[in-house]
């Protein structure tokens, strides 16, 4: 009996070893030792090596002026999601890190006591961001981060192809459907929609729902005043199923990944791509046709953009280099840095920016102006996945894929989100 017992123990141990490395509990002190003028900054992996190099050079100017050395490290966002909390707890985490706003990102870390309170720093340094953006990094009355960039989600379309086919910019749902029919007849895919990874479904649902019900009603659902299990949410799911059945989407969109959908648009294989403003820089670099950007058309008119905040700097609660960290955040919150990011990283800062004199493409200038209008008015839909819990996101991603593949109905998908929200 001895041999099987040992084998059983060894095999059990091997499997459990895998899972046991999933989390640790440690002290929440980070950066306890070392040069107080040297801080660690963790950011998301950049789109290309050039962007990181440019960022390093830009940060070097801060080091020259302040004498604070910044060690930049990058990680893919999914990896950050997995290990950041553990890093912050272990005492070996970054002093400053780029992280998402909203309850499921910054809110979760604030609740766990892993973020440094920046409320006083805001007042002392007079950091200016749009009110709605500041609200997204405010938890229990304390401001914990500086929103780094804004994103909108809408529809990019190939202006040249639209002109060729005699089509106007789609300003209503009927326009969009009519244009898609014409584009399909011409042998082109109307909309480059991907949903292999799952998260794309969250964006597609967000833009359809925002344009269908408007920002106030969307706010009510996200804040729990109304239920996800509603005909409006089901209709927003169902709209994409209808588009798929009409042949407006690529064949089997759940088999198409995001990168492929982008290349379909760049190559002219597809006439439109419903996605976010983060793509502007790449579009400018990769296409030789004129591109327009509109909100996802609503049933009765233009519709509204879906807006969201990208990652921005947060300070670890465990850092012992708070002064240097806050000084660095002050640099990142400056207008000069915002203008630099516009020109070099093609990101949209959550502060009003005067585009005159800046070296940006006409498409990006339009996006910046649209975003500035949204930021000041606050009338835009929400990118659902940064506003809800991971459980609701999972239900939304699976629900969307399920609707497209016929595994569940739009009503079941909406009910699934409601059930996840109640958990």
């Amino acid at each position, binding site marked *: 009996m001895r041999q099987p017992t040992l084998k059983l123990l060894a095999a059990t141990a091997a499997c459990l070893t895998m899972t*046991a490395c999933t989390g640790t509990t440690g002290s929440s002190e980070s950066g306890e030792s070392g040069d107080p003028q040297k801080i660690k900054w963790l950011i998301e992996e950049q789109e290309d090596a050039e962007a990181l190099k440019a960022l390093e050079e830009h940060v070097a100017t801060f080091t020259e002026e302040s004498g604070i050395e910044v060690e930049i490290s990058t990680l893919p966002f999914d990896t950050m999601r997995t290990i950041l909390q553990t890093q912050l707890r272990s005492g070996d985490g970054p002093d400053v890190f780029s992280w998402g706003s909203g309850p499921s990102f910054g809110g979760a870390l604030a609740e766990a006591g892993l973020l440094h309170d920046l409320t006083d720093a805001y007042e002392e340094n007079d950091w200016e961001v749009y009110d709605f953006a500041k609200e997204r990094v405010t938890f229990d009355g304390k401001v914990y981060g500086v929103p780094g960039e804004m994103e909108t989600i809408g529809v990019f379309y190939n202006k040249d192809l639209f002109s060729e086919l005699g089509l106007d910019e789609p300003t209503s749902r009927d326009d969009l459907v009519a244009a898609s029919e014409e584009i399909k007849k011409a042998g082109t895919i109307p909309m480059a929609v991907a949903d292999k990874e799952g998260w794309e479904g969250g964006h597609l649902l967000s833009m359809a729902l925002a344009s269908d019900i408007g920002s106030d009603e969307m706010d009510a659902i996200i804040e729990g005043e109304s239920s996800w299990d509603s005909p409006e949410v089901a209709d927003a799911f169902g709209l994409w199923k209808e588009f798929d059945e009409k042949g407006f989407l690529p064949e089997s969109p759940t088999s198409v990944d995001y990168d492929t959908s982008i290349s379909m648009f760049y190559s002219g294989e597809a006439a439109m791509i419903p996605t976010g403003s983060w793509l502007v820089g790449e579009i400018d670099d990769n296409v030789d046709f004129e591109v327009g950007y509109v909100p996802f058309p609503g049933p009765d008119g233009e519709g509204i953009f879906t807006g969201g905040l990208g990652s921005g700097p947060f300070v670890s609660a465990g850092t012992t280099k708070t002064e240097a960290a806050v000084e660095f955040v002050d640099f990142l919150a400056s207008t000069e840095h915002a203008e630099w990011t516009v020109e070099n990283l093609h990101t949209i800062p959550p502060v009003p920016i005067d585009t005159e004199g800046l070296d940006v493409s006409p498409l990006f200038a339009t996006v910046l102006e649209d975003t500035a209008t949204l930021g000041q008015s606050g009338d835009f839909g929400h990118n659902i996945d940064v506003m809800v819990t991971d459980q609701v996101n999972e239900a939304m991603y699976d629900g969307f894929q399920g609707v497209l593949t016929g595994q569940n109905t739009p009503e079941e998908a909406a009910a699934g989100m409601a059930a996840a929200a109640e958990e």
Partner: protein
Amino acid sequence: MSAPSAAAPVAVPPPEPRRERRRGSGRSRGRSKAPSYGYQVPGPTRKAQRRLGIVFVAPLLALVAVFLLFPMGNALYYVFVDFNGINPAPPFVGLANFREMFGDPDVYKALRNNVIWILVGTTAPIALGLGLALLVWNVRRGGVLYRTAIFLPVILPQVAVGIVWGWIYEPSRGWLNKVLDAVGLDAVTTGWLGNPDTALYAVLGTAVWSTMGFIFVILLSALRNVDLDLIDASLLDGADWWQRLRHIILPQIMPVFLMVTTVTLIGGFGVFDIVFVMTGGGPAGASEVLGTYAYSNAFELNRISYGTTLALLMTVLAVPFAVWLNRLQQRLADGAGT
């Protein structure tokens, strides 16, 4: 093949007197007698031997404790609490994670996919690997080329394999649908990884392709030890290929055959990487296996405890098969040796 030697007469040394064995400190003491010097070299005392033993095993014990026992204990702790990856003092929940697991329909869905994976993912590469090994067994010219070509997928990283096959399966640009179109089978084209009816099997196809080479190489090595005289004798007796395979070749390579079966089968319980890369368990959980479901819970939903409980289930399911196949292999090896 040690059977002939077993039949030969073996000189068995007479047993050592019980008193001697009790008095000495083991075989080393007996061997330490050096009559040529005319005196007995004192051997190490039991205490010294014990100390030396501890010194030798201490590094390994430390490694086992740090990398095996501590994580194992840690994992066992997690299944009885509700750890979300943040809370340093997670609440004790007793058997709640187990109750949830047994009532979770997604677990049974993932388990069903694991069973399919184990059945197809074990039998297909073994059948193909054995078939190819038999074909290449007596190939003289180009044998190295065949072996290299068939083994090549094994050395490729699973992530790279998953990405490349993802392109192949892509509905509008992938060459699989293009080839099917070209040969008039356009009716069967589909979005292989995005269709809930085909996603799991498409990933399985890739996995079979990438593991078949390993089985091929191992079985080919085993075939080199098959007694060719028996094959020749069977040919004279008029045995057909199936009879030769079943009654002559397979029995001789059975321990190795069971070893590769064990490795492949256990891999089926723990499958994760290729599914994660190619479909992420989608669309909408259609290709979810226990590994991806455990990962999703632990790292995407921050339900570390529930993810650990699912991993424990994978272990509990896999271990009996591993032990059974191992014992069978041992029995066959022992049988061959007597």
